[in-house]
């Protein structure tokens, strides 16, 4: 999304850009990218007359209490239990958006928080749906996000836990000891994004060949297509065509 355009206004009103700090306060919003122009076309001139238009892209802002429904219950228990273990600052923020709750967790405390989430009788998130990673090059200081979707079968609840690492130090503690299912998921995230999961039993590439250079699903890695030749013309690969965003 970097250097692309025009989200239609919903991302505006971002306020000031926090400089590399982590969001803790409800309502504080992080701008992760900017779009220029009206249509977001890249590489070619913008003839719309709105070429100077700049809009910001921001992810949903942290929410304030009450979160609603069972979200408060989970947040209360988590707050209490982290407090008991001396992890008061483990949860950096809570985002409630579109009926889903996301806990942003400090990466140092990730394993402890996940273990709490799994073991506490009032939380009991027994099943993890794996690790997903997102690369946000514009999110200064926390470019790489590791996202865990947890499911409590006991209480029939689903939460999301998110932690971040900067590009310069792409290390996240491995959570295989808590959820053994994360074994392959963390290897995939390493393969695709270069996130190093410290403490993983065998962090090697899983999908790409062992000698592959680079981490293909990072935003700074090109799609890698080749131009397609047709009779009388050549079509560039999808990432090099004129497109809108």
């Amino acid at each position: 999304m970097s250097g692309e355009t025009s989200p239609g206004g919903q991302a505006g009103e971002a306020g000031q850009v926090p400089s590399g700090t982590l969001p803790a306060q409800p309502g504080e919003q992080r701008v992760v990218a900017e779009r220029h122009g009206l249509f977001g076309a890249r590489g070619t001139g913008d003839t719309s007359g709105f070429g100077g238009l700049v809009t910001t892209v921001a992810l949903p802002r942290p929410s304030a209490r009450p979160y609603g429904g069972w979200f408060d219950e989970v947040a209360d228990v988590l707050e209490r239990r982290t407090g008991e273990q001396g992890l008061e600052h483990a949860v950096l923020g809570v985002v409630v958006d579109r009926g889903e709750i996301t806990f942003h967790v400090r990466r140092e405390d990730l394993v402890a928080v996940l273990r709490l989430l799994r073991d506490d009788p009032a939380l009991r998130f027994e099943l993890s749906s794996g690790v997903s990673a997102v690369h946000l090059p514009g999110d200064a200081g926390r470019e790489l996000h590791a996202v865990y979707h947890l499911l409590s079968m006991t209480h029939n609840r689903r939460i999301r836990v998110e932690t971040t690492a900067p590009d310069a130090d792409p290390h996240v503690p491995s959570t295989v000891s808590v959820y053994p299912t994360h074994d392959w998921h963390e290897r995939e995230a390493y393969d695709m994004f270069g996130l190093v999961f410290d403490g993983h039993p065998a962090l090697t590439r899983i999908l790409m060949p062992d000698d592959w250079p680079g981490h293909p699903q990072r935003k700074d890695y090109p799609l890698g297509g080749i131009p397609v030749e047709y009779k009388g013309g050549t079509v560039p690969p999808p990432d090099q065509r004129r497109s809108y965003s």
Partner: protein
Amino acid sequence: MSTTDHPAAHDVQDVYAGTSETGEGRVFTVTGQDWDSIAAGLDHEMDDRVVVNMGPQHPSTHGVLRLILELEGETVTEARCGIGYLHTGIEKNMEFRTWTQGVTFCTRMDYLSPFFNETTYVLGVERLLGIEDDVPEKAQTMRVLLMELNRISSHLVAIATGGMEIGALTVMTIGFRERELVLDLFELITGLRMNHAFVRPGGVAQDLPPGAIDEIRGFVALMRERLPEYAALCNANPIFKGRLEGVGHLDLEGCLALGLTGPVLRSTGYPWDLRKTQPYCGYETYDFDVQTWDTCDSYGRFRVRLAEMWESLRIVEQATDRLARMEGDPVMVADRKIAWPSQLAIGSDGMGNSLDHIRHIMGESMEALIHHFKLVTEGFRVPAGQAYVPVESPRGELGAHVVSDGGTKPYRVHFRDPSFTNLQATSVMSEGGMVADVIVAIASIDPVMGGVDR
């Protein structure tokens, strides 16, 4: 293996075979030569490790799965999977296409359950768009109908290929015979046998074609006659039971730790089915039961799949009855900023754009043309955020983690594919067992490599 000179090393013709010195001693790579001539030189070291590489091109590994088995005689002491031989970069490719075009890519991931891939992605997009409640009921019913038909065809292939891999070729041929019936329905409804790209953000691409209701009812009636054949052929078959019973054991604790869902989880007796516990697409309004078995083994998983096909038939019947009452209802969300203006029609050269629609945009309304052009080339914008709406695919929990940056293209889509997660259980299920049981254990997981590698 380390040994002194050995005669076969000089005779090796195959360029891919040979001997190499490693840190652990001399390693012989054997690809189909005469075993005796190789073993002759190693008599004093014969009790050393034998590592057998199965795949990635092996008829019994359920696709391009590579297994690295460490053997002691016939017993597997260590089993590891090598995957990635079908890695297609679908998640990355989707980032360069519009939200609607993304469906075209994700349908090709788990190619035996295309409608589930499409639906979980589309449900995620709809949640981001905030139009979950605006999707017309008929579209939801059609999704349910197609997904349940798809569950039948997928389970049929699971049973068919599983049968083929243990040598029960009749199970394979009858499985594919019935699958054709489902594929004929798919072709009638979506125009394609596989890789449909039929479910779209906001609804589905097309209304039911005329005659579809009758065809589906005929299919259900025929399946009710044919499904007992599987039970008669397999359920009490001593060879079939002998191969499957007690093989690939994994209990509830193991399932939860390794994140296994679907028939493997239900074969432990735990009735966890997202259609019941976290319903989507209106599943809460259908009358069906969650099928379980209590043996935690491959036979149990086979029986769960067989029973689930009966339940799917029940849901298909109910969905068909509802669709029969909804003739003419919309199948796409009313918001014209999201609904693709894609009225299709059967032309002389196959399916294409409807001539009426082309006449409208090309000849009657400039605004309609601009709108069509904008929506199809640029696409609609999806507010920034992330969503995860899993569905119960034939193999377990299938979910798409959809991230938007407010643009016209997905910022990142990650699929939590049940095949990928479930395949992790291979080593737990097969270590300590026989080599032949590895095949049965993997077939009972039913991984689809397209979904594993994406």
